[in-house]
């Protein structure tokens, strides 16, 4: 026992000495990069890399970046923004939520002179807010949350329901059984909104379409998600889609000879049955954040962008019989002529939610019973963000 402690002490002493020897010059470096903000008031950097600014951006991801899915798309966005702005970027992945490791990673980046920190998982939100308070000279952007401040902390998310609507059109055209299976993660407004938009899009092509939903209570669990997908196939679905981070649903679709609509990224390389997918593209948004932060004129906002902003989109499959209609809808969403949730909306039980003008005919509450809309209100963002009901044609419970 004494021997063990002694040898560890010796090792520690050696390590400490080496660290002390190496430490001094590195600290000098770190000191040099402190407080060297980009001069304010310059014009916004043009595309193509200025490289003159001292801005450095760091990205924190919750899981390995892999080759498809949420974290992969953030890394694509990072690379795209780096190329567009010339701002140096770095990332760490596999950082668990609510852990000291997240704090360590962010602090390490800040100590290394990074002055833009982008955190890409929901439960990073509180810690990011705290760092923003403690480091007023660093710009923070949190993805998929709702907190922000007035100076150096904003949030970003996308109106994924827009491409979901178009994906629903493609799905309906591909279905012969008039039944589409939807493997869904959690019964939260984001997912419910996507299911409703998808269903409305499908019904725009074929009013008889039904969309069956199975909840997995997972974001990434290929086993559970594959089983859910199989259950939907067994119930007669011949098109599957999902709101998850794995491609398990696609693999089941391939095996069953069904059609697969993906999510997050182009999954044609991974899934044979792949038709198309609503996808994220963080490059435009990250380019905007990096260039404004580098120019010293970052303004925090609660950014909820759509297809028009480039943060979400969908590839129109050329072979689809409704390709022309999908293109048309995409264009009219971009130029603001069409909104996914406009006009009359009927709830799952057949009762009306909105009239033909898109105004509520019932009072709406979120899943906690908080009021989110009263009779006569337009179906605004507040209602979308608290959406807790299914539209007609969805099979399953919106309560999860």
């Amino acid at each position, binding site marked *: *026992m004494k*021997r*063990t*402690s*002694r*040898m*560890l*002490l*010796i*090792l*520690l002493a050696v*390590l*400490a000495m*080496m*660290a*002390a020897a*190496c*430490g001094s010059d*590195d*600290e000098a470096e770190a000191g040099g990069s402190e407080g060297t903000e980009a001069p304010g008031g310059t014009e916004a950097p043009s595309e193509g890399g200025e490289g003159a600014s001292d801005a450095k951006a*760091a990205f924190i991801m919750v899981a*390995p970046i892999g080759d498809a899915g949420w974290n992969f798309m953030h890394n694509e966005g990072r690379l795209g923004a780096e190329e567009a702005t010339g701002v140096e970027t*770095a990332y*760490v*992945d*596999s950082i*668990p*939520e*609510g*852990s*000291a*490791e997240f*704090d*360590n*990673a962010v*602090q*390490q*980046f800040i*100590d*290394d002179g*990074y002055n833009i920190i982008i955190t890409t998982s*929901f*439960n990073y939100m*509180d*810690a990011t807010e*705290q760092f923003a308070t403690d480091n007023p000279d660093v710009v923070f952007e949190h993805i998929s*949350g*709702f907190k922000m401040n007035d100076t150096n902390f904003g949030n970003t998310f996308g109106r994924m329901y827009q491409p979901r609507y178009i994906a629903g059109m493609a799905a309906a055209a591909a279905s012969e059984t008039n039944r589409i299976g939807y493997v869904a993660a*959690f019964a*939260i*407004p984001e997912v419910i909104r996507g299911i409703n938009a998808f269903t409305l899009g499908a019904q725009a092509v074929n009013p008889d379409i039904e969309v069956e939903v199975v909840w997995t*209570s997972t974001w990434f669990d290929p086993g559970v998600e594959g089983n859910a997908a199989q259950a939907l196939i067994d119930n007669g679905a011949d098109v599957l889609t999902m709101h998850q981070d794995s491609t398990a649903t696609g693999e089941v679709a391939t095996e069953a000879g069904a059609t697969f609509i993906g999510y997050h990224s182009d999954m044609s390389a991974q899934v044979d049955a792949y038709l198309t997918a609503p996808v994220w593209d963080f490059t435009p948004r990250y380019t905007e954040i990096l260039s404004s932060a580098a120019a010293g004129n970052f303004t925090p906002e609660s950014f909820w962008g759509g297809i028009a902003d480039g943060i979400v989109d969908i590839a129109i499959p050329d072979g689809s019989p409704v390709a022309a209609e999908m293109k048309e809808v995409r264009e009219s969403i971009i130029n603001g002529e069409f909104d996914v949730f406009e006009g009359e909306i009927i709830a799952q039980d057949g009762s009306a939610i909105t009239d033909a003008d898109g105004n509520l005919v019932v009072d709406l509450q*979120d*899943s*906690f019973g*908080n009021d989110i809309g009263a009779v006569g209100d337009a179906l605004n963002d507040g209602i979308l*963000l*608290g959406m*807790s009901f299914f539209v007609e044609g969805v099979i399953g419970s919106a309560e*999860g």
Partner: protein
Amino acid sequence: MRLRLERRDRPLRGGQVRAFVVGVLIAFAVGAVLLVLSGHNPFEVYQKMLDSSFGSWRGLSTTLTQAVPLGLAGLAVAVAGSMGLWNIGAEGQIVAGAIGAAWVARLGPDLAGPLLIPLMLIAAVAAGGVYALGPALARSRLGVNEIITTLMLNEVAIRIVRYLQNGPWKDPTANNFPVTPELPAQAALPDLFERSNIGLLIAAAVILGFGVYTARSAWGYELRVAGSSADAARYAGISLKAKIFTVLVLSGAIAGLAGGIELTGSSSRLVEGVGGGYGYAGIIVAALALMRPSGVAAVAVAFGAVQVGGLAIQTTGVPASIANTLQALILFGALAAGVFGNYRVVRTAAAAPAGATA
């Protein structure tokens, strides 16, 4: 010619230190090859690892903060391990401790910090102990293997958090995201220096206290006797059943404390990942400390430094896969060294029967 391991009559004196240093050095050398092959300068990378973990007050404080849950989890495993029991469930007990602490915060959100924090930590200790009750009873009364029961309960603990955040403890202000509410601000452990909070002092007191107590007291001696020979223990009048029960519950309680300190120290709300893998890392810490509570503190600090350094080099562009491989190499080198302190490699004739080489 075949090689086989033969137990030394007695552990090598200077040999063990040598083996340990050589083991870690070999790991660094292999790691250097890996780094060169992936296009990184190993000297820069190792310098960054050292600098980030020990090179400044902030680095040292980060390392020590990381060592807190590692050390407590390692102690939990080592306390059980010193009497030959395997508590693989520290991860779940950490989560249970965090649930217990979060529950107190729900019950008394308006209590003053100096009252609330101790209550949360006491609840964490109790919850960790209670979570180990089942395996402790099953092992001591029925002889059910504690490795299986404690391991399986890890997954259960995470599911309980998932249930709480999707159901009864769901935060009504979180835009319907399935998360538990934020803890009250006064539930955060007060800062000590740089990135460390007073959880460091609590953990140090518990780990060092247990180290001295198990090494010096009759209780600790009985533990080791029971661990090395059940018959000898019985002959000496030690009640094995009671001992097994107490030690497993104690082990769970220590892990529970780690959960309480993690929740109050570095988390703003109870989340699924609160265990952070520390329960599993604690098994490695305990193994490196040769299952002796007195060795846990030093190992935890060294392990914490490796983790902090491993993360820091990722911020300089070393991919997580390489950084994790490096960490694993260092730990493996250190663990393997422990073996060569007690065993030596001997050659045997090729003609030796296969059975002899087992």
